């Protein structure tokens, strides 16, 4: 099971967090601080895995963003690495290009997509197309809502075009 997902920038700024196990706000801050200390200082050619408090953290760097997932010690690290990649590919397919700013600003979208991929810490949908379709369905529904003119996503969509 995946305990949490973190997106951290190279400067150690948090971009997205999703907690599947229960952590208090204090613990969360501590976890983020500890992990960004460990992960950001690791050299480029080392393992993408870190053993941490009896759990394992799998991370991968895309551009200036680190995607981290924390799993049980008996998990398959390579699989998690691919789940991260899977997520990035879906983000990529959905947004065009996942540069840091994008994924930051549209963080809400990133959450929605993550929700389609992972649910309660397990991989829910391995099919890329299904995910994109699901997210698109939500978007199209949103289109019909009058509210949407003010939504951030529209702005972003316009801005990123």
């Amino acid at each position: 099971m995946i305990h949490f997902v973190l997106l951290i920038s190279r400067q150690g700024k948090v971009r997205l967090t999703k907690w599947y196990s229960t952590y208090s706000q204090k613990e969360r801050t501590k976890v983020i601080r500890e992990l960004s200390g460990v992960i950001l200082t690791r050299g480029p050619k080392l393992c993408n895995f870190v053993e941490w408090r009896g759990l394992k953290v799998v991370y991968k760097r895309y551009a200036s963003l680190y995607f981290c997932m924390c799993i049980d010690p008996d998990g398959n690290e390579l699989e998690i690495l691919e789940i991260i990649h899977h997520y990035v590919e879906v983000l990529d397919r959905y947004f065009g290009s996942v540069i840091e700013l994008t994924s930051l600003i549209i963080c809400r979208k990133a959450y929605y997509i993550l929700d389609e991929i992972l649910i309660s810490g397990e991989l829910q949908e391995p099919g890329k197309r299904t995910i994109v379709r699901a997210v698109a369905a939500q978007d199209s529904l949103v289109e019909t809502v009058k509210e949407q003119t003010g939504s951030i996503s529209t702005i972003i969509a316009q801005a990123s075009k």
Partner: protein
Amino acid sequence: MGSQGGFYQSKEFLDLVKSIGEARSKAEEDRIVLGEIDTLKRRISEPDIPKRKMKEYIIRLVYVEMLGHDASFGYIHAVKMTHDDSLLVKRTGYLAVTLFLNEDHDLIILIVNTIQKDLKSDNYLVVCAALNAVCKLINEETIPAVLPQVVELLAHPKEAVRKKAIMALHRFYQKSPSSVSHLVSNFRKRLCDNDPGVMGATLCPLFDLITIDVNSYKDLVISFVSILKQVAERRLPKAYDYHQMPAPFIQIKLLKILALLGSGDKQASENMYTVVGDIFRKCDSSSNIGNAVLYECICCVSSIYPNPKLLESAADAISRFLKSDSHNLRYMGIDALGRLIKISPEIAEQHQLAVIDCLEDPDDTLKRKTFELLYKMTKSTNVEVIVDRMIDYTISINDNHYKTEIASRCVELAEQFAPSNQWFIQTMNKVFEHAGDLVNIKVAHNLMRLIAEGFGEDDDTADSQLRSSAVDSYLHILGEPKLPSVFLQVICWVLGEYGTADGKYSASFITGKLCDVAEAYSNDETVKAYAVTALMKIYAFEIAAGRKVDMLPECQSLMEEFLASHSTDLQQRAYELQAVIGLDAHAVESIMPSDASCEDIEVDKALSFLNGYIQDSIEKGAQPYIPESERSGMLNISKFRNQDHHEASSHGLRFEAYELPKQTVQSRIPPASLASTELVPVPEPMYVSESYPTTTVSSASSDAGSTELKLRLDGVQKKWGRQTHSPATSTSSTTSQKTVNGITQVDGSNTSNSRTRETYESRKQQVEITPEKQKLAASLFGGSSKTEKKPATGHKISKSSSYMVEKSHVPKSSMEIASEKKAPIQQPPDLLDFGEPTVQSNAPSVDPFKELEGLLEPTTEVAAAKNHSSTAAATKSPDIMGLYTETPAGIHNKDDGDILSGLSNPPGTHMLGGTTRTQVAQSSKGPNLKDSLQKDALVRQMGVTPSSPNPILFKDLLG
């Protein structure tokens, strides 16, 4: 215009993000965020905020909280948003609450109603959003409120909904297994879903269920194999391909499940061989995902009943991993190697260079993984090298968590494989010195016990020598400035118990040292308490020996201080000491007998000494005692009540509308009956509860108790009651849902408990066996044994040559099987027997590289031995080994025949049980020793190497 307004809002947010991104320091960032929080706090509480603005505020709150600040003032607004009619707003609301709230947050109760409504929505997107929230927010108490609706959704036409419903049920199962235990059949049904996504999702809960109870799912082996086959043959839609691999994530999940199902089950495993072999062949080892699947295959192969061909493929894959340049793959390779050496130890040898490379690698992760591997392959021949390395590493790191882990591993290895008493004591000293505060207190207790009970089973001089050397080293170490508390406790205890035992040190010297300790660590109560008790022992021994006791002045002042101590514990100890000193030799001897720390204290549980008194009372007209189970009258009532109130006790809170009681009843009854048909009812356990209808103390009775107290108190009861449930077992909060159901569940939890106990036991036994491992290696490397490292005691050297070859490579798992089957004969805590360790093998040479080679070497010979299939039949404990005194020490596999024939009729009477052997051990060992030994020898002869305990397999082998 709207977009203008929107843009404006967003710009504010963008600016915030930007300024935080540019913040130079944490303080600057905090300042910005705090300003933002102020703004939000002010604006969010304004009346009549447009929804669109509100939505943005909430998103900004999410952002603030993500940065680690408290945004709890806005939670309620997020909750309000979930009530909104517009999906867009609602979705933002749901997103925010899932991010904000933990499952135990008070506000959740306000969302449950909305979720209930949304789960019934016509729009599947609304349902999906609600299900997402369900997965995150619904807790044990609120499960019943949404359960019926979620179950209904399993048949929803949209696959996205079915998938999420499955995941939600899985989550419920994790939180409270009993709440969905009657729905297990639904998971099986969903396995056949038309949509591969739903099928894939179903594998998650099934994996959990199978982990807990393998045997109920053996019938699914064929289905899983056929699904895996279809997946591997690319029968799934192209959309599931990932980097040209057909649905790799589903393959991995299936392989994990097969590994569980095939573990120790020959028949089930045979069904899997073909498909796993196919996957090995088809996997593309150039892509990462291909390697992920390969790794999972290796895990599967090392878990199921071994198949030579698959093992070969697995070994190939591992060597490819280890030869790779990628650290990730090498890491996985080391991990996989650790799994595989359990069943085929010989493969480690060909990778020795790679392993050493990884150990020397600057990458900490890789290094730690390698230590884990070394830990798994430690034997007496290499224990010194490995433990030394581990200790060096412990000293070099700061990570307390890992330090604790590796220190406890050092201790474990040292306990198992110690080549000599002195080495053992020194190693323990080092561990305590460098990681003393991190080591579990149990380790310290273990060490005390080991020193007290001794290592040698028949040699008292060895034990006393061990103690003297411990005392010597501790007196030496006490000179060091700062010692961890745990270590000091051990030191005090040992000094008290054995400080004066050998007569080398005078009582006044030892007491002086103890007083120093108590003074130097005056703020550590525990250490002081240990010191006082040690002082008491020393004085008591002195008095008992008839010597005159004069208390040192510093000791007297210490006692005065303690007599007035704030700590009642210290005070009491001091008073006791005072009292003991005033007694005569005879009395003191019976209070504090010398060296009696391991004598059993007999407790008369039946209280038979009261019989006379009871007899008297009954004669005088008192009522005789009726045991709870025999008390009549209440039994039927409580049974009836249990049924009557099953519903009430199964929830803490009522979410159903009161007008619709029928619906809930309906939804409950089928499950209950279902459970009762699936499981065998055991009619006993519930009766426990009725004798304490109001107290609800024990976990078993808490639920039944709550039924009698009726609905209103349920929530309260459950809150308290839950504390007593151990989260891992399936002890249910709905035990009393229906008596039959409840009982079967209680039963289930019992079995799972006993299972864990069993595995624990077998692990312990594994530990017990180890001395024999040492000896095989020792004799295999007999030539290299050096005299320089002879233990100072030298007590066993003469014997060492008489020990027969041991089979060090008997894989742990097969031992587990053996031990599970005949637990009785292996009971004695032979872990103490490693005091035998006389045979000195492979004394560490100067070149560290060579040492490491040495550590991998034994496996070659081991492999050879294995191929001969008649491996040196290992005997269970050193006791029996003593019998074969004529067998030369340097024996190799050629001689196995002899050993086996020798073994076939071991004289059962030969028990060298040392003074320390416990009562239990002896009694269980005694009667059928011969018989079981033969059986055991037979098992070992077969060279079976299954990976996990399974009685069926065992029967097969024994015919």
